[in-house]
């Protein structure tokens, strides 16, 4: 390694190991065209999905695009408030900036009729009882707390209906529906 020559006058000083230089930057984001429509209706307790112009696949939440084809999606469809758990994680690690009792269950929720899942919270369910394929329904915030935010649904809870089989749950369900083929 390179030899560093330090003047004798400062040779015996304690080495600086770190300096603190706090950075603060503010961003004002725009949600985008599709998310705006979605958030507006979400504030009315409606869940919208995007319909793919190519094959009619339903994408929730809408991002205005079908990532398979790189095409814009401007058609929306209203979704039911029920679905199932595609897969899940029992988390014992806090999320920075969010108060959640540990452990909590984060799950890929596939709404009935949707072709992709989204990550959300599952509660009213002991972690050891959560299952892939478990049927769930939305638990909304009280009406006076609902607004144009992504966080109107408090969590999803089990409905008690029979589970979907593993091969039809999550992304595997898409293959079953499209091809009758369970080998994702």
């Amino acid at each position, binding site marked *: 390694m390179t030899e560093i020559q330090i003047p004798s006058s400062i040779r015996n000083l304690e080495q600086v190991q770190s300096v603190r230089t706090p950075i603060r930057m503010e961003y004002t984001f725009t949600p985008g065209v599709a998310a705006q429509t979605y958030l507006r209706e979400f504030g009315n307790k409606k869940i919208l999905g995007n319909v793919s112009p190519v094959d009619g696949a339903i994408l929730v939440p809408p*991002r205005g695009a079908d990532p398979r084809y790189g*095409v814009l999606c401007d058609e929306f469809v209203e979704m039911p408030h029920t679905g199932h758990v595609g897969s899940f994680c029992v988390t014992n690690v806090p999320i920075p900036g969010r108060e959640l009792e540990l452990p909590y269950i984060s799950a890929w929720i596939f709404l009935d009729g949707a072709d992709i899942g989204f990550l959300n919270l599952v509660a009213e369910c002991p972690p050891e009882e959560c299952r892939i394929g478990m049927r769930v329904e939305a638990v909304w915030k009280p009406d006076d707390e609902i607004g144009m935010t992504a966080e109107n649904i408090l969590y999803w809870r089990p409905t008690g209906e029979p589970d979907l089989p593993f091969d039809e749950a999550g992304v595997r369900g898409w293959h079953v529906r499209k091809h009758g083929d369970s080998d994702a």
Partner: protein
Amino acid sequence: MYESMVTAMRKVAVVAASSRQEEKMLDTEVEMMIPLISKVREETGLNQTEIGFTCSGSSDFLAGQAFSFVMTLDAVGPVPPISESHVEMDGAWALYETWVKFQMGAIDTALVYSYGKPSPGSLQDVLSTQLDPYYIAPLWPDAHSIAALQARHLLEQDEISHEDLANCAVRAGTVQSQEEYFDQPMLADPLRQADCPTYADGGVAMILAAEGKAEELCERPAWITGIDHRIDSHHFGVRDLSAIPSAKKAASKAGVYDAGIDLAELHTSYTVHDILLRKELNLPLDPTRSSKNHPIKAETLMASGLLRIAEAARAIWEQEANRVLAHATSGPLMQQNLMCVLSGEKG
């Protein structure tokens, strides 16, 4: 001084480009890029599976999100999977990485894109975080002030004059006349608003093709006859603020001086940079042809460099010019520079 090394290289051309710039865009990056990418694919009749390589440039700090480019990849439609890469740099360097890929012989066509949305954040603060984090960034100098530092240096050395700045502003179109220029108050003394960039959200998408394919896809391909990029020291105290050695070296390597230039599309978002770079490259301060879309009027960080290449290609497609220099820069005070020479002749 430096030999140009591009003669033995495989011929690659820009065959299609599409861009959009607006002061503040409500679309997400994905919504912004889809129409641009779709357009260049339609123009060339290529679908994504026929494109050999895809490369993009963008910045997480600009987007205010880690891994921001991951979401934007959706705009390409990467299903089935694609051979793809990303630089945390202006898209001009994504084009360079792609050009290198062509030289390996592995591909015949490529998609290059880049984008930037400065509008959500405070760009002056964002750019300060690009500076040396130990000695400079903690002082939060903003981009205009740093450019003013250089302008002051050049004025006091008599290397430029206030009239030069005014003329450049008129040529760039930020003011109509010298009089209007001198009526403006100082923004970052000695620079006025007309010397400094107006930022814009935007993006650009481009298709490149190799010899043999390019002629099929485009009536008059814009051939890359030379491309090179270099970086200078970061530290203002070390650099000679009157010179841009990296720009000169990249220009030599890219063959800029091998023949005359009809049009120079320079990524200079301050008048002072425009003048200094022109001097360094021996380009006239009063060129007969000027950029139709000078970056001072619409600076889209991370895309402006690639936009210059798109503008240069457009000038060739429309037969307005035959040999065009496109330039991209990055870092404070044009620290890093890329030179790309485009020609209507394959060479």
